[in-house]
């Protein structure tokens, strides 16, 4: 993957020199042309096409934004409701992610999604302890986190 990024940058800079205009727009044109070339020649270059990773990262960011808005609607509902019809508690969630980087991503995603807030991580990185606004549907929350976030993060990192 680093080879492809360097190739793409070299093509962009070469394009800049060939068209003799040293501006950001010509660099961008060169970059797009380089990406196109890499896409066409991807069978002859080791590793998968690197912009597909970028696309997956963008998808993860969109997922993040969507969940953020949804969680806010949920919280605002709880703020303005009369009485307290929620039952908070802390539950444990096993995770398959291993490296520090992945787990940091997962905890940030958990913290910004509806009704869940990561509180602690076990020493062997196996369990994440999550504070939920409504602990009665914790199974649902675990399934949702495993299905959407863990999968999306794994697609990016592996």
């Amino acid at each position, binding site marked *: 993957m680093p080879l492809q990024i360097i190739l793409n940058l070299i093509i962009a800079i070469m394009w800049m020199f060939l068209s003799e205009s040293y501006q950001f727009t010509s660099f961008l044109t060169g970059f797009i042309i380089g990406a196109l070339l890499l896409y066409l020649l991807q069978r002859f270059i080791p590793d998968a096409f690197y912009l597909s990773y970028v696309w997956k990262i963008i998808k993860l960011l969109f997922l993040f934004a969507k969940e*953020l*808005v949804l*969680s*806010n609607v949920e*919280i*605002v509902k*709880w*703020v*303005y409701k009369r009485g*307290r*019809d*929620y*039952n*908070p*508690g*802390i*539950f*444990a969630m096993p995770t398959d992610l291993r490296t520090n980087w992945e787990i*940091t991503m997962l*905890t*940030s*995603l*958990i*913290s*910004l999604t509806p*009704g869940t*807030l*990561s*509180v*602690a991580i*076990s020493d062997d990185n196996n*369990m994440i*302890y999550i*504070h939920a*606004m409504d*602990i009665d549907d914790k199974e649902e929350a675990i399934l949702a986190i495993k299905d959407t976030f863990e999968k999306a993060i794994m697609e990016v990192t592996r």
Partner: protein
Amino acid sequence: MTETVIDVIFDILVILLLISGAFFIISATIGVIRFPDVYTRLHASTKAATLGISGILIGAFIFLYANHGIISGKLILGIIFVLLTAPVSAHMIGRAAHSSGVEPWSKTGETRDEYAEIKNKGS
């Protein structure tokens, strides 16, 4: 003619973003006052405040671009840093509260806390 229409659309967008951002921040503040314990308050302060701040910053970005033609990178960086730091700080505050022995509030009176169970088992 078309330019004024675009201006009006941008103005409406900016107004909507600023109002919704301010609304979310006010909701977060009320939530911090109304919720019963540290953890539920963290819910309110991290989520609603994050979206509120990003809404206001995006509104300011669009305003600067539409009315003055400035593309302000600082505002975008501000959004990115708020998004990066808010969950981490919430995690740290929650962990610190738990290690100093704050029990989560519970409606029924019986606290459900799997983290405390495991910690007690270890010691």
